[in-house]
Every structure is written in C-alpha cells, then in structure tokens.
C-alpha cells in the first residue's frame, strides 16, 4: 500500500497542519477559496430507528432507489431503508431475515418523490454492519475486506 485514506485522525491532523504550513509559506499565487459543498448525507440529521424486518429486498422494486432495501415495521409505521449497492452483497454483507429486530442509523431523505431512509449502519443482535460511510458512499465488499471492519481506524463511529 502506498497511500492511505487520511481520515485517520492523526494523519488528518498532520495533513491539515502540513497544508496550513504550505498555504502560509508557498502558495499565495494559487490561493483560492474552496467551494463549499452541499452534503447528500448530512450526518447532523442522522437518527436511529428500531424496527422489525418485514421484507428483505436484494434488488430494488420499481419506484425505489437502486440497491438493496429493508422494509421495516416501526412504532411510527413502515420504513423503506436503503442499503445501497453492496448492503446485501459480497463478503461481510448484512445477514438478516424477516421477523428479526434491527437498529438502523441513517438519514431520512426525499428522493425521486419518495421518502427513503438512507441507512449507514444496521445492527442485528450485537453485530453492526456498515453499509455506507459518513458521506453516504456505499461501502464495497472489497472495502469491507480490506478494512477488516476496523472502522475505528477509518474515523467511523456508531
């Protein structure tokens, strides 16, 4: 491995300090305001819901956003939890069956005219599955394998 993601706190701090140093010393000519991006997955709006799995969909039904879904029964009604492309696929994928209780953390969004719960983590029993990262990007099976589910190192938290 020749380069690592810089979300590890120490490296990130070092990188930011180095960048600040370079910014001060070296690049007044190229200094540009960095455009502020809008966040698809706004972690400040993240909530956790408890529900019972009523249906497991490996492939989206018509009208749903692409990828895998869990249909949940919750105390406030039914919920469509989107698991993304890899949620139920590949090594280390979420393993769950109808009737099981799950704890899902995510953000509720209106997508293509439909309310969708964009899931980031799913807890089944004591096992927590990460299906998206904190930016809402689907976590691939390869990424799960490479990272060895050591999410603390990747700056992830429940």
């Amino acid at each position, binding site marked *: *491995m*020749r*380069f*690592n*993601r*810089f*979300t*590890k706190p120490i*490296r*990130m701090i070092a*990188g*930011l300090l*180095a*960048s600040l140093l*370079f*910014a001060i010393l*070296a*690049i007044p*000519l*190229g*200094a*540009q*305001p*960095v*455009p*502020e*991006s*809008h*966040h*698809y*997955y706004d972690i400040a709006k993240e909530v956790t819901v408890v529900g019972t799995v009523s249906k497991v969909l*490996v*492939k*989206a039904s*018509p009208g*749903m*956003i*692409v*990828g895998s879904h869990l249909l949940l029964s919750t105390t406030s009604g039914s919920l469509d939890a*989107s698991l*993304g*492309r890899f949620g139920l*696929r590949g090594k280390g994928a979420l393993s769950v069956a109808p009737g099981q209780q799950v704890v899902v953390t995510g953000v509720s*969004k209106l*997508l*293509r005219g439909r309310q*969708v719960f964009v899931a980031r983590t799913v807890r089944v029993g004591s096992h927590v599955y990460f299906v998206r*990262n*904190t*930016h*809402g*990007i*689907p*976590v*691939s099976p*390869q*990424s799960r394998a*490479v*990272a060895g589910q050591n999410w603390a190192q*990747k700056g992830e938290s429940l």
Partner: protein
Amino acid sequence: MNRKAYGILLVITFLAVGFLTSCSSNSTPLIIPTTPFAFYLSGQDALPAGSGNVNFYALAGAVTITPTGKVTAGEQDYNDANSANGGVTSPEPGGDLITGGSLTVDSTTGQGTLTLITNNPALGVNGTETLGVQFVNDDHALITQFDGSATSSGSLDLQTLPSTPSGGFAFTLAGVDPDLDPVAIGGVFSIGGSGTIDINDDGSVLTGTAFTPVLSTPDAFGRGTISGVTVPGGTIAVNYYIVGAEAVRIIDVDATDSLVGSAFGQGTNATAATNASLSGSVLAISNGSNGYGSEFGALGQFATNSTPTPATFTGVGDSNELDNGVLSGLASSISGTYSIAANGYGSLTIGGLGDITALQVYLTDPALNISDPNNTSGGGGGLVLDLDDSLAGGLGVLIPQTDTTSTDFNGNYAAGWQNFNYFTECGDCESDMVAQGSMASGGALSLTGLVSDPFETLTAGAITETGATFTGTPAADPNNAGRFSMLSANENELTTVIGTSEWSSWDVVMYQASAGQLFWLNYDDTDTSVFLGPLEQQPSSLTLPAAIGPVAKPQTRQKP
C-alpha cells in the same frame, strides 16, 4: 576449399549482395515505417476469469503499428488494484510488453478492432487483449476493451515522438484507493517545478496541497515515470505516456490502488489566466471510479460573467445520480460563482445540478483540444474535479461552447458511452459502446457499432456485440440553444438494437459544444441506468493505418 569454408563464403556473399541491393536508390527500405499510438482506458474487469469479481481497472500504453495494421511492439501498464484477490497489476518497472497484434479497421467508418498480444497471460484472453476502436479521424479513436475479460472507455491517439513536455500542466485522475473506495485527484504543476494537488478520497476532501512532481526521461515508446506525486498519507507511483508535448496519459501503478487520467499543457493559462479565461462552456462530469462510490453523470451549459468578483455563470443542466437516487429536473436552471487564479487553478460553486455543488477547475491551453489533442481546432476549456463528498471519484471537463446552432449538428459522427446499470442482479455493472454513423441536419441520428458487456447486464445474448444500432431524432431545445433531447415522454427516445437485449429504449439529453463535439447523457427516470459519452464529428474521409477496406462483420463472442 572445404565444405564449411564454402558455406561461410556463400553466406558472406549473400549478405553483401543484400546490403548493396538495399543501398541502391531503387531499393525497398528494410525498416518498415510504423505509426506510434498511445492509449488509455478505464472501466471494470472480471479477473480472474470465472471469479465473479467486478473490479475497477485502468490500462494505459503505447504501440507501434505498420501501414498494413501489424502491431510491431509496445508497452502497457494494467492495474485493477486487486491482485490480492486474483486481479492484475502489471509488474513494474517494466510493465507488460506488447509483442504483436493487429489493427483491422473499416476504411469507410473507421470502426474495427485492435488486438494486443502481451507477455502477461493473466490479461485479456490468455494474454491477448482486444480493443474495439472507432476512429474519429486519422489521429484519434474512441476505444473500449472488447474481449469479454473487461469493459471500459478510453482514447487512442497518435503520438508525436520524441516530445518534451514543458511549462504548466493541468491534470486529473480517478480510481480507487487502497481500501478500494472511490478517489479522484487533480491540480496544476509546472514541469521542473512544483504544483498544487487536490483530492476527494471517499468523501474526505483536501485542497491546495503543494507537491513537486519529477518526470523521468521517457523511453522510445514515450513511457516514463512521475515521482513526487504526494497525497495526504503517502506517495502514488505513477507512469506516463506521451501523446504530444502538451498531452500526457498518466496511470497509477501501485498494486493496491489504481487511478488513471491525463495531464494537459496550460499554455497561456499557466501564468496569465483570469476569470475571463473561462468562457461559456459545456460541462460534462461523471464518476471516474467505475461503479465504486456513487455512480452519476451530468451535463450542463452556461454563460459566464467575469466582471463581478467572484465571477458568475448561469445556464441549464441535467443530472442523473444513479446511486444517490437523485435526478435533476430536465434542463434545470443552474447558476453559481467561480474564481480562477493566474496559474489556471480555480473553483466553481453550482446550484441547481443535483448534488453537484462544488468543483475545482484547472484550465488548459486555449489552443489545445483536450478530447483530441492532435486536433488543431476545438481548443480550450479545462479539467474538473468534484469536491462533493457523496460524489467522490467524480471528474469532468469544461469544453468551450462555440456553436449552439442546432442545424450544425450534421454529418458523420463517432460516438461512445460508458454505461452503469441495475438491469440485472449485477448492480452498477458496466457496459460500453463505440459507434459511428450519420446525423441529418435537424433530423435523424443513426449509428452502428460495438457493444462490450462482459457482465451481461444488457442480456443481449453475447458479451461482445457488433452491428448494434442506435437511432433517434434529437429534438433541439427551443429554450436552450445547444441542448437536445430524445425522451420517451415525447415519444422520441433513443432506440437501440443490441443483440437480443430487451433494453432498447433510452432517455437521452445532449449538449453541443460545437458542431465537432457533443456529449450525451442517459437521463433515466426509472432509476436503473446512467451513461455519459462523447459524439465527435468525423472528417469527410479517413486515411487510417490499416484501413483495409470494409471489414467483414466479426463474430459476436458468446459467454464461455
């Protein structure tokens, strides 16, 4: 004289006669002239065969081809960053050798195949890669891997060798990081000097880091190394292939991460760029991580106003974010601000184009055509890096919009697209096409071409298809000159016949930068597919190497 001595004398005499004959003025040259081409692609591979893997992969290389289409030699670097699971990264520092092959092209359409025999048996089919080629002109082709081992989109371009890059360069690359998560980087640098690099790695963004790249002396194929490409946390090993003095293909050759892209000369924009250097443009942007991260594509066009600070722009755009579940309105109004520094390094903030809100911009030489670097017309624009956290891996281009007259979209065109879809259980899996045909002014578009579909997402009956057809009538947008659509809502969708595929109807929007260059986007309201690609106008005739006349229809390749 004994028998042995007589034999030696005979050989010497034969060689002497041969030498004298070759020196005579009427002799046939002993050295067959060859034409050098550089190529690069990125997409998804299925290596090792039968594994069920769907890996990001990148490929860049250079080959020499005789006038009769024989591939004489070459070098390449292949990298899917997944060798731990049976994937392939070419051995470095030498890469793979290309020891033979052939280019077969229809002299009328410019369509055909390029086979590359490599010394790496893990690649292609037993070491032989087949690329589908669609020449736009004599110097430039749209290409896709076409052998069932992988699929991808890229470019093949005439090399000018030797060339010595100098001055300022803008660059972007996209791919996967060591966790096989989406990553894209971009920036500007000067040859022999330093530069500034930006990165969006799986949603973590850092801009404005200084770096000092050093290019080695290229070999006879125009291949060399770039050291000093540092990103937060480490250094990326990078090789490059020269297209010309102002165009270089670049590929990450680390075994655990893979990126590919280009660097282009900036010309006057390396030292004297201003906000006025970015004129009205077409924006084309998509995920360069090929199914990793969130797949998306977007097109737009805008006019700029460089008078205020920051400068502003307004226009329209269409965005299809497949994995995010976001689809912009048709011809959505877009606007925003931008700022360009003297070294061509800048930023742009957009509203109205889905989740695409924050871009870094790196201006290129106003005289350089970044889609077709040997083309002396169609220059200017720049490269784009998406900083939006959910769209990590996003890269794009800005192409000056110089002709929005709809009737100028006319003549013969080469076209390509890179498609990701959820048609089957293989989510975000890729298929690619290259094609050629005619566009009647104000009328119908009719293309015929090659489709690569190793993951059988199109259920076409074969993993490589020839003779696929693409027909429709692009409707000019009466409110936005330069924009076209082919939509099922208007009973005007693009219709395709790809083997036995049931996927035969595509909603499409198109943006015209000039008569010579357009882009098309799959605007899919069923949330199952997205594609983006170019349409580039062909000249009235082609004089290609290996143009051997109309080519007999190759056989489609069935899934083994």
